[in-house]
């Protein structure tokens, strides 16, 4: 019994950490898909880029961990702004097929670049000394880094939710998600709003990718391998919503960890099965708006 409880706590903890990372990465996708109606399959590229930038800075240039995180966030946010203005913006009115194809093309390009520059093996992650080791808590040992991950992610999430609820930017995003055409006629500069929100979403993805490098390995196949999980978080949570994907990410994080621990021969089978079930029952997602 003790053993079972112990593994339960362990699964919950690690599931929570994984779920938080999934959320930080995917929340940007939810907002931009809800805001711009754009199917951005290449979202995982931003997460991967964040991971590579942070790890190159730390491993190659000896940049300290906090600085490397910030660098990853800013670099990817800026780069995504350029991408959005130059390429994405042209396709907002295009059909779903065009958007799917375009973003698949972006994935191909970035996977190739990643392989060229970094090779095919996963990047080694060297945590800073003060985040290594274990923490004693409630009579158990938890990896320090994962605790940090959870705490840090919660604070980012809190900041994000506060920003969307309280700031003018947040109000504009919520208005534009609800009624795109109305928002424009009320004088909201939707193109600037899109660019800014896209940059924020991509930056967050980069942050998530960098923070989670220990859980989700940074390697060239990243955007292909994990796209399905980011999409599941968004689709099951509900497009354009903030809380929905949060719940979905935690559920997936814990469920995936539980399955890998207790029924490894099934792997992610149940996640996919559950996703299919949920989407059939509620195609707009658990917290999404019914069409």
């Amino acid at each position, binding site marked *: 019994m003790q053993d079972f409880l112990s593994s339960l706590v362990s699964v919950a903890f690690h599931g929570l950490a994984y779920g938080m990372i999934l959320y930080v990465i995917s929340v940007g996708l939810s907002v931009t*898909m809800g805001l711009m109606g754009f*199917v951005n*399959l290449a979202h995982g590229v931003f997460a991967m880029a964040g991971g590579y930038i942070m790890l190159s800075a730390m491993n190659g240039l000896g940049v300290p961990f906090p600085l490397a995180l910030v660098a990853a966030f800013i670099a990817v946010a800026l780069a995504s702004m350029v991408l959005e203005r130059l*390429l994405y913006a*042209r*396709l907002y009115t*295009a059909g*779903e*097929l*065009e958007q*799917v*194809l*375009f973003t*698949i*093309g*972006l*994935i*191909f*390009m*970035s*996977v*190739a*670049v990643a*392989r*060229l520059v970094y090779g095919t093996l996963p990047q080694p992650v060297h945590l800073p000394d003060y985040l290594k080791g274990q923490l004693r808590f409630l009579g158990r040992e938890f990896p320090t880094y994962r605790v940090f991950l959870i705490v840090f992610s919660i604070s980012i999430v809190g900041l994000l939710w506060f920003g969307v609820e309280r700031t003018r930017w947040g109000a504009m995003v919520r208005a534009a998600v609800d009624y795109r055409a109305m928002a424009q006629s009320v004088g909201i500069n939707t193109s600037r709003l899109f660019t800014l929100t896209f940059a924020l979403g991509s930056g967050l993805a980069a942050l998530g990718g960098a923070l989670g490098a220990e859980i989700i390995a940074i390697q060239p196949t990243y955007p*292909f391998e994990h*796209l*399905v999980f980011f*999409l*599941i978080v*968004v*689709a099951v949570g509900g*497009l354009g919503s903030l809380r929905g994907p949060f719940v979905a990410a935690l559920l997936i994080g814990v469920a995936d960890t539980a399955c890998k621990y207790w029924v490894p*021969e*099934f*792997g*992610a*089978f149940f996640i*996919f*099965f559950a*996703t*299919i079930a949920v*989407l*059939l029952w509620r*195609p*707009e997602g658990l917290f999404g708006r019914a*069409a």
Partner: protein
Amino acid sequence: MTHAGGYIADSRTRAIEWLPWVLAVLCYFIAPSYLPLGSYVLTMIIFALSLDLILGYGGIITLGHSAYFGTGAYAAGLLAVHLTGEPLLGLLAGTLAAGLLGLITGIIILRTRGLALLMLTLAITSLCFEVANKATTWTGGVDGLGGFTVQPILGLFKFDFFGKTAYLYCLAALFVCWWLVRRLVYSPFGASLTGVRENNVRMHAVGAPVYQRLVISYTISAALAGLAGALLTQTTQFVGLKVLSFELSGELMVMLILGGVGRIYGAFVGPLVYLVAQDYLAKQFPEYWYFGIGMMLVLVVMFARGGILGIIDTGLARLRRKPA
């Protein structure tokens, strides 16, 4: 109008439509060292045809067509390993298995639209991939399934090392598939698919059983994809996880878009150009090739949505407009 079919279309086979077959037969005689690549191209053309049916004609965007390709591939492989290496039975097994999966999944997912539908197609293929990945006793997991032999076709035509039999086998299969797809496209059913794609709402308003039509075409499309998968297993005598991957679905989309969606021969041109180019360029610079493909996709979407055939169309139209 690029899409073939409809009530005023001339459905007789035009002379130029025999060109692919002439080229294919020529290739057999003048380029014998390329026959294994040729077999792969022919297989992928069948796969692309199956996707074009549901995507170009039905208007259903799917990220998971490899689920059916892979199901057919593994079905044929498993049959060869456990029961018999008789190739035509293997083809049948692959086609039926994939068709059945297509029917079941189609019934389930075609009630949804938009992101939910896209997500479901990806989830299904991910599910199949995961099953194949974990059920190692059946599928060999990451190592794949091999070591089975394919018996001579009809007991007469043995699979040789040069790939000659395989090539003609694939060519015959493609001919049958092409004939079927062409019939379908020009039929009233095919016309109604065009209607569903062009305006789903209006098709409902004229009394068309839209859902039923989509499920039927999805099932046929899946069966064809399964046939292609079975063909691949038999001609390479191996099945690996790649046949179920999202990456393969993506690659197939690239090939189809490259050739031109919604026009039967786009499915011929696309895979041919893509795979031949890949054979030349990718060996030397695989990453540059991958990068180039990605960039080409981006450029095609931005500037040349009709693919190669679309560019040819525009070029021809311009030529015709010029005074003599």
